[in-house]
């Protein structure tokens, strides 16, 4: 069983179609049509990834997203028909890792799913640190000042990408490619929102970030205030 994907979408035709495509790529799709039942199905099936439509009967997608995120770091990809900034940012802020705008091509869908499931399974023992944050890469653990911090896999990847090259300033485009696995996508809102989320977890004062520092007009870099 290589990758179970929970598809939460009230449009049965689309859900079925997504199922066909995913199955043909070797994934194992499970379905849920209702926002209220989504969490129950999630608990019962324990998927490796969630594809979540934003407009659902019952609870809406953002709410479902928050609930799932509340108990798991599993990758969540939103399916959205709205590409307006506000809607997208709202979805990302409720905990989604990535989003796909409808209409999308099957290849695009599969690529995004793969990118989110592509967890390096053979990590060499590696310890990184930024400031007083130390990162155990294979153990997937982050500790700041002796206190463990729980990060989602995506936030963890983002932090590791920055920490591996503390001397380098990453543009949003490069981070997109490194962390999300995109080639040409120009949507940098993803990066902005997730950097904010990461900061809210690891910074002492997210307004005055010391770990993930903004380089104005360029992008982000790991802070090297102290070692």
């Amino acid at each position, binding site marked *: 069983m290589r990758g179970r994907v929970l598809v939460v979408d009230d*449009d049965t*035709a*689309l859900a079925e*179609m*997504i199922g*066909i*495509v995913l199955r*043909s790529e070797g994934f194992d799709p499970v379905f849920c049509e209702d926002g209220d039942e989504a969490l129950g199905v999630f608990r019962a099936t324990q998927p490796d990834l969630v594809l979540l439509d934003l*407009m659902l009967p019952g609870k809406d997608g953002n709410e479902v997203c928050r609930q799932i995120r509340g108990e798991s770091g599993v990758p969540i990809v939103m399916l959205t*028909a*709205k590409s*307006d*900034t506000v809607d997208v940012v709202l979805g990302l802020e409720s905990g989604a890792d990535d989003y796909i705008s*409808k*209409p*999308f*091509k*099957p*290849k695009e*869908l599969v690529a995004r799913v793969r990118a989110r499931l592509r967890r390096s399974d053979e990590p060499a023992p590696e310890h990184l640190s930024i400031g007083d944050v130390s990162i155990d890469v294979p153990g997937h653990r982050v500790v700041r000042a002796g206190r463990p911090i729980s990060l989602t896999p995506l936030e963890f990847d983002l932090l590791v990408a920055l920490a591996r090259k503390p001397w380098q300033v990453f543009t949003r485009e490069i981070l997109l490619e490194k962390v999300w696995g995109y080639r040409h996508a*120009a*949507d940098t809102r993803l990066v902005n929102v997730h950097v904010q989320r990461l900061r809210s977890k690891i910074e002492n004062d997210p307004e005055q970030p010391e770990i993930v520092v903004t380089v104005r*007009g360029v992008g982000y870099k790991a802070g090297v205030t102290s070692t």
Partner: protein
Amino acid sequence: MRVAGTWRLVRARTARRVRSGGHAWRSSLQVRVITTTTAIGLVTLVLVGLYVGERMRDSLFDGRVEQVLEESARSTVQAQATFDFSTATQGPDVSRLLEDVVKAQSSGGSGEREVFLLRSPGQRSTVSVGAAASDFALGRSGIVTKQLQVATAVGGQHWQSVAWPTELGDEPAVMVGQNVDVPVAGTFQLFFLYSLQAEQERLDFLQRTLALAAVALVALLGSMTWLVTRQAVRPVRRAAQVAERLADGHLSERMPVKGEDEMARLARSFNEMAAGLQDQISRMEDLSALQRRFVSDVSHELRTPLTTIRMAGEVIHASRADFEPAVKRSAELLQTQLDRFEDLLADLLEISRFDAGAAVLDAEGRDVRDVVIAAADHAFPLAERRGTWLRVTLPEKRAQADIDPRRVERVLRNLLVNAIEHAEGTSVEVTVGADEYAVAVTVRDHGVGMSTVETAHVFDRFWRADPARARTTGGTGLGLAISLEDAHLHGGWLEAWGRPGRGACFRLTLPRRAGIRLTDSPLPLVPDDADPPPVLAPVVRPRTDPAALPELDDDSHSDARQEVR
């Protein structure tokens, strides 16, 4: 731009200074009404006052003079009688007689008067008898004028206004004279001097009272006008304030209605108008919100089935090799038309977002050169297919501007695709220019070009220069309309130039910072080679078919231009 701004400021300041005097006059009805009323009242009162004062003085004076004349006539008759019955024959007797008469007359009569007995001018007497007077010093001071003496000598009663010098200053007075026959001594003239000081004082008092009354009246008039205009103007002012608040968007603002008068009616009608307006606006707001939600819903409702169709199409398309030719071709057509449908839907939604005012500028400081390079990269494959040379000329310095890179790149891609489509195998030139205020990009092709009429319509929705032209790249007909909206969203310009047979040029000009008002573009819209036939300039090596390319002289351009592939 700066200089123009300063000049405008100076002009405005001067104008303000000139205006400030007349400002209160023009801006306040109340000031105007009070000023006019008071001014008219003042002028009227002054005229009336002058007339009444004159009349008062005349009647006082005339009455007194009449009284004086009567009295002096009576006194003269009395004195004459005294003289007639006198028995004096000698000079000293006559002198004593004169003194007696003077003494008697000065004490008689109403009020204070002085009496002078003078010899009539030109009279010779056998006895030497001098003049007699109740006040010799006054008599000698020449208060009895020669003129009056001469006039009196003719006979009858004569009078003259004189100034009576006293220790308190000159007092107005009247001198009345008449001839009397004095025994032995001949004709004398008897003069009475009456003071008009009492009348003068009465007149002064009356005039003071009058002036005081006038001032009080003017003040009364002013305050009455103020009160009346205040009553009329206050509701108008209030209405103006409420109207301003309404205009600022406080739609629930209303005027207080008091009583049943005209003002109350004004307030009521005003409130009715405001209520109507509020109603209308809220209905339109609802409609606009409805429209926006409709667009958003349509977007969702259309996109979901489209996604399913699209995925199904892809799956079918992927296995088209197994189909017979007709089905295979159908699968391919399905695929390409789905692409087109999707583009059209996306463009329609984008345009309706602009129409709903829901488009938001996601601006960040970016080097426009990078965006141009990205757009050019995107256009290269199409240029290759069309056999068009694409040349990009960039300035050496950074062309930093606050832009929404997604939108600007979309505009540039659009312009490039358009130019390549219409270039018909000739070259397409992209030039970037920057100055202090703006960044500009021109996209020039040397294809069929456009007429002036076509240029005017090129940004219209669904407008096509030549309806018969096949559009193999499948534009939606909304591309340039969206580009124009994108440019406007930045506060920028998007303009087109074209001439049949000379190609076309599109220029995008963007302000470097939000708030800069464009007055000029760093690049010309009309190309230098607009008139001579287009010359094929050396171009960047396309990725296909290098053998077909002319030799490129690298050195000739590398210093001033940076060429991009």
